[in-house]
């Protein structure tokens, strides 16, 4: 998902980010590690073509080490603990280049038996990896995707998902909107299949929480202004047209997963209404502006390490490595079969900087978690909201709960 990969950074920070984080990491990791047991953490990623011109705002950047930097920071953290109790963690990064042979690389990775793998892969590649016969007894930690399908019909027993999926995100926003009594929504949906999934999730959330869809519309036109000299003039005429509907509503709920037009909506809409969804007020697992529950320390630590701000993908990478480290240091687990059992057990817990420890839903192996509601600069709220109750975990009010899941992993 493009949205997950965005970072809100100052230009100076963008420049700094070109200085790779790796040397400082290597220097720190190399310092005196004799007499320790080594555990190698596999970080498997496919490089995807990305055109920075498609970022709507000049304040956004797409550093080459998105996601990986979070994993590297977490590896450093593990080693500060590991050195006290005899473990040395190494992060083995395996990168399939853009246009490279993904299948061959995945098969090679599993040539010597099942492994514990952190996967920085999009949905299709993730499924290819998960479905390899050699991966049957592997444990794959999906640190990147937010696709509903991977938690539903395409869930796999060997795969665990760390970031909140789309249905969790729309539920997180919906709870807040219902709490505010902003219950009449105008859905504006972009042209991609992912937008259709997200829009369906908005409708599902409306039904779950008693909101009303006042208007529902697909916006197919690519406004195309992006980095052009006079883009705003086009936008200023297009956005009011796109948002003119004969209905009364409280918010515009936008479904634009690839950032085609969502960021142009604020202050350009036909009616004066707030924007929520994939742009405007967004639901996310992490934001560089988030500082509650000691997240400030995490942000500062990451910035010292990577010389840039921490994004949702970095958080995914950080969580994945911390999960592996917990299993190794707390439970002495170094192989995939006991690892899967441990991740599904009551003993498992990972720190999240969300004020609570997180564990996995057994039915679809999605990490339960509070979801942040953020503007680019501020934390607006954190869902689940007060009053949305659940007999098990209040975080199970977000996304696909056990009675409604299409995934029944054992």
């Amino acid at each position, binding site marked *: 998902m493009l949205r997950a990969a965005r970072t809100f950074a100052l230009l100076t920070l963008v420049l700094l980010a070109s200085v790779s984080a790796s040397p400082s990491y290597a220097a720190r990791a190399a310092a005196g590690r004799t007499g320790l047991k080594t555990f190698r953490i596999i970080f498997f990623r496919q490089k995807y073509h990305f055109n920075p011109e498609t970022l709507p705002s000049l304040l956004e950047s797409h550093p080459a080490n998105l996601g990986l930097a979070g994993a590297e920071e977490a590896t450093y*953290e593990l080693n500060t603990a590991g050195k006290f109790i005899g473990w040395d963690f190494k992060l083995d990064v395996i990168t399939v280049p853009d246009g490279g042979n993904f299948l061959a690389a995945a098969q090679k990775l599993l040539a010597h038996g099942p492994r514990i793998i952190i996967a920085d892969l999009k949905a299709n590649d993730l499924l290819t990896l998960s479905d390899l016969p050699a991966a049957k007894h592997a444990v794959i930690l999906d640190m990147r995707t937010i696709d509903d399908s991977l938690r539903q019909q395409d869930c796999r027993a060997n795969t665990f998902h760390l970031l909140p999926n789309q249905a969790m995100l729309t539920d997180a926003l919906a709870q807040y909107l219902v709490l505010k009594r902003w219950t009449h929504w105008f859905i504006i949906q972009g042209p991609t299949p992912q937008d259709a999934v997200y829009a369906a999730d908005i409708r599902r959330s409306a039904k779950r929480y008693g909101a009303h869809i006042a208007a529902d519309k697909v916006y197919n036109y690519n406004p195309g202004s992006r980095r052009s000299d006079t883009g705003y003039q086009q936008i200023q005429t297009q956005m009011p047209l796109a948002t003119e509907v004969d209905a009364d509503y409280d918010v515009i709920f936008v479904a634009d997963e690839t950032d085609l037009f969502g960021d142009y909506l604020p202050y350009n809409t036909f009616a004066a209404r707030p924007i929520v969804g994939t742009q405007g007020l967004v639901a996310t697992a992490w934001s560089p502006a988030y500082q509650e529950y000691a997240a400030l*320390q995490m942000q500062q630590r990451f910035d010292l390490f990577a010389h840039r701000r921490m994004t949702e993908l970095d958080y995914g990478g950080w969580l994945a490595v911390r999960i592996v480290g917990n299993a190794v240091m707390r439970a002495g687990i170094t192989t995939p079969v006991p690892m899967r059992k441990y991740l599904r057990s009551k003993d498992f817990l990972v720190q999240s900087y969300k004020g609570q420890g997180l564990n996995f839903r057994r039915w679809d192996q999605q990490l339960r978690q509070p979801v942040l509601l953020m503007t680019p600069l501020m934390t607006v709220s954190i869902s689940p909201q007060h009053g949305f109750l659940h007999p098990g975990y209040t975080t199970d009010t977000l996304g696909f709960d056990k009675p409604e899941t299409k995934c029944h992993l054992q």
Partner: protein
Amino acid sequence: MSSAMTRRGAALLLAAAVCLGVFAAQARATELFVTNEIDDTVTVLNGQTYKVIATIPTDQRPRGIVETPDHKYVLVCDGDSSNIDVIDTKTLKVVRRIDTGPDPETLAMSPSGDKIYVSNENNALVTVVNFATGKWITQVPVGIEPEGLAVTRHGHTVVVVSETTSMAHFIDTKTWKVVANVLVDTRPRIAEFTPDQHWLWVSSEVGGTVSVINPRTHKIVHIIYFHIPGVDREYIGPVGVRFTTDGRLAFVALGRANRVAVINAKTYKVEKYILVGQRPWQMMFSPHRRRLFVVNGLTNDVTIIDVSSLQPVRSVPVGRLPWGIAVVP
């Protein structure tokens, strides 16, 4: 109260003492010092009337707070300013600033008051500072996000817990070496020795437990769990730990569960949950441990618990996002 009178012989109070005689004793009551993390102030409350006596401006992000053993000063960690504010308990003014290195979160003093131990949250260090000179004696590398510190009665060992590494680190104060590391449940916040020094209790905020550690063998001998009807498990975040003088009862502040647990420190059984304000973290007793003061971060107040009846008797407002508390007799 005579020693207190000489200690705080401010002109006004002396005048009051002369004029009012018996009432003077009340005017020199215990004082509560509460750090307000986002106000950059310390609120000083009268320990009998609980009225605000002073609001002292500090440097940025005051959190950890202790008094010196001679009660002359209160020391406040200013996380975003990399120093300690030294507040004179007579004049209620900041009289000195001590450099601590980056992001001091909290601190403890040696039993004689000659050394300050500071946890540098962002640097995974404990900085040891000579209180008289302000010079650094040493820095000890520990786990990530070090926070709560505990010092043994004779000062031979300092324990620090690291929130992200989830360990209690035992530091020998002769060699300044870490001699033992005990892995506890996730996100330890506070370490506290029992009054007889036989056990070390460590609270784990995210793990939702308290580990009881034998400080001689460095082994966990018991883990205390909390079950509160109607409160989801993920809201139970143990932080502050305090013991009654006789060591019979322990009080544990439970964060977002908005309660203080009362635990039989011998059987480890939770005897009661006392409802307080929102997100209690740090706690401190009155001088004779008749009252327990609980600092509630999200309701901006302090709940006062009567220790004999185990009832909350009242709550008093302080500044915004109150964090730590020191009580000066």
